[in-house]
């Protein structure tokens, strides 16, 4: 075991897969000499050379589109979108193309592609560097979506994503990059795509969450434990596929479900989680499902006050947990 940050987990996964498999290469804006804006690929250019660490033009549709083509031709591209807010120009390539290539060619072509991008708020990124995008993609069959929150999950899931035969959207919460440290196994390991993590065991309610909020939820759960309330915290880790059975088992046990995400509420990923519970576990519940999410405004603003007002935090999560067990 080594202790590292989420950023280091991402970097080590990229590094080990590039070293292991000559088909793996990286392309994106400023991934070369700059080593990516968060310094994730620092040193990669020198080590792997210009043909495997490609500084692209400022053009996201082609970052993904060229990567799709390379993937169809047998490579394993890792395309980087510098911030999740800039992924929209590549939406056609991701949703319209990558996700459908296997299906539309009846298995004749495949598209083993990873699209990595930092998302989320809490770093004063303002209106265009703070977005959560998972809800804009999770409806799309053919895609897989990872949202790791710990260094080990970041590393193990990224390795899985690169080895996957299908396109994976890999979302890294930028606030976790340096904030979150944790133990990571040595050597080659993977975390399977599609398996949630029961991050904390509990019997009184289930908190279903992912990304940065996992950490806030655990903290909130710890504070409630002082009053004897034991919350189970489920970190989904991947959103598509979503680990329904872990969610349902937990809810069957605790009989109360609180869904927490930073992304806006209406039509967010929490909607599907709530729907799954409403369809499959309705008679298990002792209280209505609750969602604690970002507010339904267009974006997180630049001022600290906007950020704080937008993002769920430990206090708000603890408050929602208290309310729910009180029903």
């Amino acid at each position, binding site marked *: 075991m080594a202790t590292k940050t989420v950023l280091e987990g991402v970097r080590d996964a990229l590094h080990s897969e590039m070293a292991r498999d000559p088909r793996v290469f990286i392309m994106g804006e400023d991934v070369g000499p700059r080593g990516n804006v968060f310094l994730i690929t620092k040193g990669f250019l020198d080590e792997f050379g210009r043909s495997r660490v490609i500084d692209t033009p400022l053009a996201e549709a082609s970052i993904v589109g060229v990567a799709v083509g390379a993937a169809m031709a047998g490579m394993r591209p890792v395309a980087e979108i510098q911030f999740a807010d800039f992924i929209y120009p590549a939406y056609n390539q991701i949703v319209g193309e990558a996700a459908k290539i296997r299906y539309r060619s009846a298995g004749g072509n495949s598209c083993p592609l990873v699209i990595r991008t930092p998302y989320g708020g809490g770093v004063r990124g303002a209106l265009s560097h703070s977005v959560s995008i998972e809800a804009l993609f999770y409806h799309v069959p053919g895609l897989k979506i990872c949202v790791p929150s710990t260094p080990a999950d970041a590393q193990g899931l990224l390795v899985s994503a690169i080895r996957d*035969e299908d396109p994976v959207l890999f979302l890294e919460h930028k606030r976790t990059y340096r904030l979150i440290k944790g133990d990571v196994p040595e050597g080659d390991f993977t975390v399977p795509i599609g398996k949630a993590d029961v991050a904390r065991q509990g019997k009184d309610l289930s908190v279903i969450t992912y990304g940065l909020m996992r950490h806030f939820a655990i903290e909130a759960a710890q504070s409630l434990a002082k009053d004897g309330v034991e919350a189970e915290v489920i970190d989904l880790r991947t959103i598509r596929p979503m680990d329904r059975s872990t969610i349902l088992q937990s809810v069957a046990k605790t009989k109360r479900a609180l869904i927490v995400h930073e992304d806006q509420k209406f039509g967010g990923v929490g909607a599907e989680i709530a729907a799954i519970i409403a369809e499959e576990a309705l008679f298990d519940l002792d209280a209505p499902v609750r969602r604690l999410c970002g507010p339904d405004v267009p974006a997180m603003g630049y001022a600290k006050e906007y950020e704080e007002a937008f993002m769920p935090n430990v206090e708000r999560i603890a408050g929602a947990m208290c309310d729910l067990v009180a029903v």
Partner: protein
Amino acid sequence: MPALEEESLANASNDLSMKSEPKIRVSLPEGLSAETLREMYGRMVLTRLCDDRAFALNRQGKIPFAATCQGHEAAQVAAAYALKRGTDWVVPYYRDTALALAYGVTPREQLMCLFARKDDIFSSGRQFPNHYSVPDRKIASISSIIAAHVTHGVGMALAFAMRKEPIVTLITFGEGSTSEGEWHEAMNFAGIHQLPVVFMCENNEFAISVPQKLQMAVANVADRAAAYGFPGVICDGTDVVATYSVVREAVERARSGDGPTLVEAKVYRAMSHTSDDNQLTYRTQDEVDALKARDPIPRFEAWLKDRGLLDDATIKQMKQQAQAEVDEATDWAEAQPPPTEADLYTHVYASGPLS
């Protein structure tokens, strides 16, 4: 590049050599033997019959949709033969029936996609007709989203270049597609990395009903190449030999590491955009009638006959044989089973239909 010529001979599905090969051979375009030229002619004839069949089936109510390539055949067949078939990749668009048939797609395969049969090898009846995908013959999968495939072709070329494989990628599209932002990005990327790509624009002056002057403020799509640091070349896309020469040169540039070329083949669209369109809502009957004079098939036929490479008897025989092939393919494909409900769920992910 004599390899090319042998290649085309080896790939020929029928023996097209004439009974009485003329003694005095005219000088032929580099890389093209008499046999190859006849084979190319044969592909054009076969394409026309497939195209006509599609519209006949549509009128009979047997298939709901057909898209024509009439007017584009010369450019497409020329491009196919300028490539090293079996080695070079093509990333076509939905109007490339002639290109596909010249690149190894069979009439049966073509008819299977028209009927949307389960065993349609392109998409198992999931996509509209003419959305080819034949990896074993180096034809990439495309969608109907205009210009989305152009970056793919560039990415494939990038992969080949990374692996140092001497493969050229041909990417085709209509002039309308050059308005899309993705087209610009693809061209730009290919230019920066001087990738082994040939971009071929089949300019028929219409994007459905929108005429070229409302699509761009330039006279030639080829004029756009300068923005990407590589040459743009114009050819008469109804002239097989002229197009062949231009594409062949572009292929050689690409293969020798000198980067991309944008070839603009000036063609025309003989019919409405698709079976869902009626071009008389936006151009006159006179305009449409005038196009008939440019039909590339009689033109190539005359060229071949002038040079003694083809005679009426052979033409007749070839047409009959192609017709027989298309008829057989039609009956066969029609009789093949459609997809079932269970087929809806295949090939979602490599690991199965998980969500």
